[in-house]
Each structure stands twice: as C-alpha cells, then as structure tokens.
C-alpha cells in the first residue's frame, strides 16, 4: 500500500497519542484537516494493511506487575532454527523471538525476550525453554536497568507535504 499525504497526516496525529476522553478522534481528525469519518476510515485501512501492527496502549512492564524480564540468546544450528523459533514464539511469556546476525565473540543467533512477574519465574521459564528445545548453549542477559524507553517517532519522507 502506498501512503499519501493524508495518510501521513493521520499517522502524525496518532503518534501524538489518543486522549482519554469520550470522543478522542474528533480532535485528531480536526488537526489532520479532515472529517472524523475520513480519519477513522484511514485508520481502519492502515490497520487492515498492517501499517498499524497493533492498535493499543503501551504499558510500563514493571508497574503492570511484570517485574521480571530478561533477554535470552541462543546458539541454534541452522537446521533447527525453524523448529526452535516456532516453539519459543508460541510461549505466552515470550514477547520477541528473532534471529539476528552473529558478531565476533558473540555466536548467538536466536534472541528471545522473556517476561514474568518475578525474576525467579523468568529463570524457570528460560530453563524450561532450554529443556524443551534441547538447545544447551545460551546466555541469559538479565535486565539490570532501563536507561531509555521512548516511542519511535516516524516522519513522512522528504518532499511529501500535506
């Protein structure tokens, strides 16, 4: 799907955030210079086309009762990547499961972000992942401090004005 200037106007307004009030989209539509009907139609289309991956709120994990989290990285043989990636991705405690390029001195190729209510619970889940996958070469990189967490801000490409 190609995005036109009016789609970008919608995207820009949504990135400013949706207010907690009865009719929050009225103001965003007005700022985007269109009717509420057009605004909502465009949002629905962005969602349907997958440009909006998730329409929802973002939580602070630690304040929402999920105090434990860790990045677990796994060294998975190429022929096992499909099986192990699918297995880990199906676990409700795993939010992200990506293969990534390796780096000198860091041979792990499958990355999983694991969340639970406590750090001890995270450790148990990772041990279960190792057991169920049969992958014994892994490292748990426990989160010690969140130093930055911001919502990305996307801007329309140069030359496309409203």
């Amino acid at each position, binding site marked *: 799907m190609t995005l036109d200037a009016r789609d970008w106007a919608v995207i820009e307004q949504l990135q400013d955030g949706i207010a907690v009030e009865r009719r929050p989209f009225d103001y965003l539509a007005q700022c985007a210079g269109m009717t509420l009907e057009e605004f909502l139609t465009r*949002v629905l289309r962005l969602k349907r086309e997958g440009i909006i991956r998730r329409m929802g709120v973002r939580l602070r994990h630690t304040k929402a009762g999920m105090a434990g989290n860790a990045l677990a990285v796994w060294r998975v043989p190429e022929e096992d990547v499909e099986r192990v990636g699918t297995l880990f991705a199906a676990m409700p405690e795993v*939010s992200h499961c990506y293969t990534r390029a390796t780096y000198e001195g860091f041979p792990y190729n499958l990355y999983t972000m694991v969340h639970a209510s406590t750090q001890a619970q995270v450790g148990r889940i990772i041990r279960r992942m190792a057991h169920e996958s049969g992958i014994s070469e892994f490292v748990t990189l426990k989160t010690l401090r969140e130093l930055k967490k911001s919502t990305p801000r996307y801007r329309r490409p140069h030359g496309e004005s409203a």
Partner: protein
Amino acid sequence: MDDLDRRILSVVQEHFPIDERPYLQVARQIGSTQVEVLDRMKALVERGIIRDISPVFDLQTLGYVSTLAALDVPAERIDEVARIINARDEVTHNYLREGVPNLWFTVIAESEEALQRVLKEIAREAGCGPVANFPAQRKFAARVVFDFGERDDA
C-alpha cells in the same frame, strides 16, 4: 490493579476500538460503563502503568530500518555513555544488562546508511570500542505478553 483494570487493559492493549466513542465500545465489551472506563483509564495513566496510547507501526512499511546494537562499557562509565546514547533521537530503547556486552540499545533510521552513521558516531563519542550490530533476520514473534485475563503466576 484490580479485576476491572485488568479487563480494561486486556481490551485496549491489543484492540483499542477504532470508533467515534472508543471507550464506550470498551465498556460494552467488558460490561461496564463509559464513565467508569474513562475514570480507570485516567488513573492508569496517572499511576504510570499506561505509558502511551498510540499505535505500534510497522516501521519497514513506513520506510525505516532498525537494529539492535550493543556496546561493552566499563562499570564506572555507564551513566556517561548512556547519556551519549540516549541523547540520540534514533535510539528508542536502551538497557543495561548482565553479561558482556552490557549496554543494549535499539536504533531506527530512515536508511541503512543513516543507521550505520549513527552507530559509528556513537562508537566514536563513547570510546569503548566498536558498536556490535545485530540486525534482525527473521521474526518469529513480536507481541505483547500480558494476558491479564487469567494469569497470576507469582
């Protein structure tokens, strides 16, 4: 958080209604009232449990590239180097983790060249060796994990 808070979050976390009156729709779905949903949502924002009400976009479709990068920083320089990294708008997340390397951050940019430039500039300013770059290859899962409906796994 009580049961009503959890029921509200279980809806608005993944399926915020795209509707003239989204909070009324939420209320209908969970058998509550619009006034109650608005009050609870305001409180969840004030308490810092809700960080942001805005969609998650597919950055590739919007013409962006991203990566996960890491730098190994001596303990006594963590705050200083974190300031250098966090000052960049292109850096969206930055975590101190156990192990080596210890500082892990995500970067978004409008092109691969711009992304490489950011990594190089950070490496130069930080002076802790090269930044390790771990671009994603295949994504098996990217989603939220809070199943407020039934989970209580203390």
